[in-house]
Each structure stands twice: as structure tokens, then as C-alpha cells.
């Protein structure tokens, strides 16, 4: 059985700043109501259901998250889906927001770095592990790196060091040499086992 997500399974995902006003703006947009009903017109971001306009759906997911929802944790590093700084999770699978159109993730459950901590701001054990292991330097790759590691640990709560190393091989970091990031993934792994 797939282990439960230690955060979102609790049914209390965090609301990011700025998202409320964005939802209102979408809700008031008259064009949203004229859409055909065949496909879902909504997107779930950090547990919050958002209604989308046609224009929204044509945007890149990264632009939508950053510009419309003010969720700036996902970073733009290369714009071609190579560096991984824009990684977010869709149904707990990592995807490159810079190379994904909003239309491609309609109806899916997205998690950004802003949705990983508890609603009261309490850090997720993986976030705490990144801090404790010294895995953070400039911090630009960190949100994508944390989410990639989170998705990996949900599937593999008992990883070896080499597996952890391979899990982040598609996320670039220029500061750390990766060693302390791998340390933090291994340190956080027991928390994923407990929730099973």
C-alpha cells in the first residue's frame, strides 16, 4: 500500500498568501462561466480548489502560479525543463511547471512548496531535515529539491544512499555538491515510514 502523504493526508493543507484574492478574481470573471462543462475547469492548489478562465488555462503553470496566485516558491531557472527549480507536485508526482500548461493539469491536485508546511506554519519533517543537515545555501533550487525528495520518499520510505542520490539527479544545484541534500533525505525517511 502506498504510504499516506504525511501532510496532505491530514486534510489540512496550507493556504498560500495571495491565493484568496486570486480565487476571487477568477470567480468574478464572467468568462469563466461560459465554458463547456465536459472537462474540469478547476485546479486544486495546496488543497484549495480554484476556478480558471480560458486565459489562465493557456498559461504555463509556472507563470500562473507565480503571477496569478503569488506562489513564488517555484523558481524559473532555465525555462526548458532541465534544472528542476520550478518543480511542483501533481497528485504527488513531480512535474516541471515551466514546461506544463495549466490546461494539462486541470482537476489534479497540485502541491507547491508553500503547501508543504502545516497550516500553522510548522515545518514538514523533510523541511526540518534540510535545515538540520545544512542542505540549503542560496536556496534557489531548494523548493524544487524538497518537493522532488518528498515525492520520492512517499514512494520509497526506506531508501538507500544511492537511491536517494538518483532520486534528485534531475534537479540541479550549483551550491551544495548534493551531499548534505542526500543526508537530509535519509534523515527524513523514518518520518515517512511512521505514517504508513
Amino acid at each position, binding site marked *: 500500500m502506498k504510504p499516506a502523504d504525511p501532510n496532505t493526508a491530514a486534510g489540512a493543507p496550507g493556504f498560500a498568501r495571495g491565493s484568496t484574492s486570486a480565487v476571487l478574481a477568477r470567480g468574478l470573471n464572467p468568462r469563466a462561466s461560459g465554458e463547456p462543462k465536459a472537462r474540469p475547469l478547476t485546479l486544486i492548489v495546496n488543497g484549495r480548489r480554484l476556478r480558471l478562465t480560458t486565459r489562465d488555462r493557456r498559461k504555463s503553470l509556472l507563470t500562473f502560479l507565480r503571477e496569478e496566485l503569488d506562489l513564488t516558491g517555484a*523558481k524559473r531557472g*532555465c525555462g526548458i525543463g532541465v534544472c528542476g527549480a520550478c518543480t511542483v507536485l501533481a497528485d504527488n508526482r513531480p512535474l516541471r511547471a515551466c514546461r506544463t500548461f495549466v490546461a494539462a493539469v486541470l482537476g489534479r491536485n497540485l502541491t507547491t512548496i508553500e503547501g508543504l508546511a502545516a497550516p500553522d506554519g510548522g515545518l514538514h519533517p523533510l523541511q526540518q531535515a534540510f*535545515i538540520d543537515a*545544512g542542505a540549503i*545555501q542560496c536556496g*534557489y533550487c531548494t523548493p524544487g529539491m524538497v518537493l522532488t525528495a518528498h515525492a520520492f520518499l512517499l514512494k520509497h520510505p526506506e531508501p538507500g544512499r544511492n537511491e536517494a542520490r538518483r532520486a534528485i539527479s534531475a534537479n540541479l544545484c*550549483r551550491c551544495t555538491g548534493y*551531499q548534505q541534500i542526500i543526508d537530509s533525505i535519509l534523515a527524513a525517511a523514518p518520518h515517512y515510514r511512521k505514517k504508513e
Partner: protein
Amino acid sequence: MDEMKEKAWRNDAVAKVTGRARFTDDIKLLGLLHAVPVYCDFVHARLVAVDTAAAAKSRGVVRVITARDVPGSNRCGQILKDIHVLADDKIRYHGDVVAVIVAETRSQAIAAAKRVHVRAEPLPEILDPEAALVPGAALVHEEHGTNLIHRHVIRRGDTARGFAESAHIVEQEFRTPFVEHAYLEPEAALCHMRADGVIEVRGSMQHPYSTRRFVAEFLGLPLARVEIVGTPMGGGFGGKDDTAAIVCARTALAALLTGRPVKMTYEREWSMRESYKRHPYHLRYRMGVGTDGLIRAIQCRIVADGGAYCSTSPWVTWRSTVQCCGPYVAPHVDGEVLSVYTNHVFTGAMRGFGSPQVNFAIEQLVEIAAEKAGLSGVEFRRRNMVRQGSTTVTGQVLEGHAVSMSEVFERVLAESGYETKLRRSSRGRGEDDYYGIGLAMSYRGVSLGAEGTDVCAAVVSVQFDGSVLLEAGIHENGQGAESAMILLLAEELGVDRSRIIYRRPSTSAVPDSGTTVASRATIMGGGAVSRAAAAIRLQVAGAVAADLGCRPEEVRFAGGRLTAPGGRDIDFAEAAQRLYRDQKYPYALGVFPAPRVDWDESCGQGRAYFTWVYGCQAVELSVNQRTGRIRLLNAWAAHDVGRAVNRAMLLGQFYGGMAMGAGYGLFEEVAMSGGRLRSLNYDTYRIPRSTDMPEMTAIVLENRDPLSPSGAKSIGEPANELMAPAIANAYFHATGRRRCQLPLGGEK
């Protein structure tokens, strides 16, 4: 594994791990406009006209800016003011910017940029530094009179005599490529004019004071009317100096001309195209060794491709000059290091700053010489390395600090099992993957040395309730500089680190303290913090010493309390309050001027740096016989850092430096074609991934440096400058083939 596993701490960790840290592009302002640069497809050309009419009429465009709109000076530079912030007379490289489009949205600005038309007359392209030096060659900067940017020499003894005394003479050429810093965050700037008439600049840069100068001169404003506000930055590695400052200057002009806030965020392709790189070097060496295995003479000629602008080339090549012979004693030396203008992308500061190139050469050359002299590389290094009291090739006597070259070297030999593994190395024999181990070592002058004025300031003020505000003239590049300063101050004042807040840095608050490069943050910033803390201690102790029954200088600061020798004590916060009640303020400016150095440029002799960091790294690898693919198996690094201030961050510098060094050794190279970059993003410029790296072992040596008030030296660059030659030596021990051109991977 590593020596200690205590929990790491840094002041910005929570914000960065939750996505709350707002980098420049994450910030929005009301009425924000978006700016983008405009390039043209010339490499060297005389500019005839920049036609912006069509772009100006494009949808959403508010303003198109060209060189004609610059109110101040269009020239900038830290050494020579040869950078044309907006191209005016010529195009000197493919990354020159001819105009800036300012529009309501970013996509409108990008669309309009395509409608700028540039007319120019192509000029002969100068792409080979040696050809650029031939008399009569076309000039990149006519007013400079020559394509030679600078020439450093080093002359010691008499090399003719040295070679005559030598039993073995070896000669070798080496080449290194253009290398990209590849910070994950591309350049960005956000500027607005405040009500008080000050242009406020946020941006991704590592030299706020130089940015302030560039912006002020470009806009024709006094320094006091430009304020650079510290903003989280996504990596620099030396690369967010000139280009980052220029991006800020253009954005500030857009804000000035439109009266609205303006943001300019670079795409990766623009960043790679325009930003300066690490210098490619062509190095030619000759070394003579006596029958006793001692180096008698070294001759070298090194030519660096400076690209279109001077930038920091004279400083980068100066460090190469001082360190061109590695950490070895040589009585007779004759060398020159030239930096040359070409129409390539310009080159400047990058982590290592002129040392990675010479280390790649000299650390292979000593092994080549050792072999010829019938000695092992280990024995040869033992005989020739600098030791306590040695005189360097620039005539500097190494004293006043622990010269720990031998200590770091022997530690790496022992921990890596070097000599056993060396005997097991394939040397091109066997049918499976070749296997080999190799090492390299260096000494590195700390901070700027004789490059320039080296001084740093810090301000400490204690509040009424005993909380403390700290700011220092160093910049948080991601390395954890702010956290190191907080930890040092906490220790000096004997208070918990949670009491101390590092203020959002501003160039308007702390005196110009230079650039956060040259691995100088901890030693220089730490020095300034120590001095400010000493002044604060005297002030606070002075207010309570009488009550405690002792003299102010006898008061001990620890555990959040002030304690007299007799045992009477008082809470730190209470002592601070007492001071305020006495109408005195616990406030101090600490200034740390680097100890004096001296330098004679005519012969390249002098006391180049006030202290040195000693380091050694080893790497174990395999080479696939069929594909030539190199796989790193293990790596070790030992560095004498003086003192570990923040251990986890220190280890992060070890690992990150080694990874970047491994990329340099294995596959990093900016591909060029006729002056145009072919590597413009991470798909065509490969940096190390997690799976390219082996497990790394960090060996931290701490011989406190008496010339550093905090005892700490530096690590950022030492960790970065040794991996490539260590890989090259391991490659040789594995395959029996000497490779003298970087990068080494990917070729059979």
C-alpha cells in the same frame, strides 16, 4: 564520514525551505513595468543606427531606451571604464546590448524587442588572443591602443643559471576553456524612485557597492541617491559582479525615465550570452629539477582571453602570477601572464579567480617532472613544498601563521589510503575499466592581497531590551555569510544567537566595504564584527563595572550575563538598559583593515597576501576503456580554514566547491562558434548532477590565524581549485595518458 554531525543553522533557512524567501523576481510593486535587453547578431561591428521606431509603437511599450538616453556616463568598469552599458559606437561581442524595451508586461517587451533594427558595418573578428597581440591586428578598443589588457611578470633569481644547474628539464603546454558560473538564478533587478529622491535598487548581485557606483555614474547621481537593498540571491560564484551591476544600472535608468517601478529578469539564454565567464588560459611551462629532486627553475608564459571588456582581468591574472608555481619553493622563476582583448564574451571573476587554471597546469607539471627525476609525486611534493619560514616565488617569507601545507597533504594521503591505491592504479593495463587515484594541492592567498584596498566595516547596536542588530559590509551570496557573522557576534558578546538580527543590508547604512568575493567574507567581515563587538563590550561593561566591583576590561561576557572576576554578575539586557538610562548608546562601528601587503609590479616580487590557506584534494576514479567515460568513485579534501565558525556551512563550501571543480575537470565548457555562444542553457552546458558526484570526505584543519581577529580564514575558493588537476592526475594513473586540456570527460 564527516567529523561532526551537529545540527546546522542559518538565519534564512526557514524562509528558503518554505518558499517564503523572496528573490528579486518574486517581488511585485504597484504599477510595475517590465524591461528586457535587446541584442543584435554581430560579433564585431561599427554601429550605424539603432532603429527603435517600430518597437516604440508596439503594443504595451512605454519606452525604448538607447545609449542616447543615458544622463550620466555610459562607460563603467571596476578597473578600466571600457564597458559600454548600452552599445553606442561599436558592437564588441555578441552579448552587447543596444537597447532596453520597457513595457506594461514582460511578453509585450519581449515581442517589441524583435522589432528593433540594428544597422552596423562588420569589422574583422578578433577571436584568438595570440593573433590579437600581433602588431597591426584590428583593435577591440581603439582608444586603448593595443589589445593587451595587462601584462604581469614575475622574476626571481636567474632562470638561465637555474636551468643550467638542472639535471632534468620538462616542458608542457596546457589549455583551459571558457566556463560558466551557472548560478541557478539568472540576473534580475527591480528599481524604483522613492519619494526622497533616492533610486532604490534590489537585484541579484554580489557586489552592492560596485553596483551602487555603476548605477550612480550611469544615472549621473551622487552615491547618496542610490541605495542597494539586500535581497536573497540565487548563487553568484564570482559571476554576479559586473554583469549584475550593469543589469541594475539599465533597470534603474528605466525607472528614472518612466517614473514607475521597473523589473528586469533575465532568461537563462540572455544570462549565458551576456554574462562574463571564467578566463580560458593557454599555459606554457618549463621546469628544471636538480639531481637532488629540488626544483631549480620555472619558466612560464600564460595568455588569458579577456574577451571584449577588461572587467577584473588584471586582478584575476595577478593571482595567477603569484600562484603560477604552486605551493613550491623555486629559486629561479621567470614568468609572464597576459590578458588580451578579443571579441569573445568577456571574462572576469569566477570562484578560484585565476587559480584553477594554473593549478591544472602546475599540479600535473610537478608529477611529470617527478617521473623524469625518478621520484614519486608524493616524494617530489614533500621535497619541494613550502613549509614554515619558506620563501615563496614572490619573495614572501611565510611566517606569522601556521604553514600547514605538509599537514593537509599528509592527512589526505592517510585518509584516502593514497599510496596503496596508487600502486593499484591501472596505468593503462587490464581489460576492465581503468582505475586510478590522483591528488593536487595548493596554497591560496587570502582575500584581495595587493589587488586593491582591502577593508571591511560592521555596525553593531544593542537595543534597550538586550536584543542586538548587526550589519556588515559583506553580502549573503548563499554561502551563509550572514549566519557566520551572527555566530561570531554571539560568541563575542556571550549571548544566544537568537538575540541577534542581521539587518537587511543596505549600501546606505554601512561604509563601502568592497566586494564579497575572494573568499573574504568570513575573515574580513568577521574581523570587523570582532572589532565592533570589542567596542560594545567596553561600553556595556563601563556602565556596570562599578556595581560589579571591577574594571570594565575585567568583565566576562558569557551565557547572556556579564560577570566580574569576583563572581558578581548582571544580565546582558539589564546592563544595556542601564546604559540607555545613563544617556549612552551601545552602538559601535567596527572597521577591519587587512594587514599591509606590498608588491613591486615591475618584477612581480613582494608580500602578496597577509595570510594563506593550505589545501589538498584527492580523487579516485574509473575510466571506461571503450567510451572514455570517467566516473568519480571517492573524493577527499583537507583545508586549513583557521577556524570553523559554522561547521555545516563550512562543509557545504567543501562539497559545493569540489562539485564545481569536478565539473571543471570533467565536462564544463562553453561551446563557441565564431564568437557566438553555442551553450546557452543547461541542455548544452552541463553542470554536475547528483549522480556525477561521489561521496566526499571533508577534513577540516583548524590552525587559528593570528592575523584574523576571529581566527578564521576562508574556504569558498580553496575548495574549488583542486578537483580538476586531481582528476587529471588520477586519469593519468588510470590510463597512462597525460591530458593537458580541459575538460577531460567525453573524449576517448
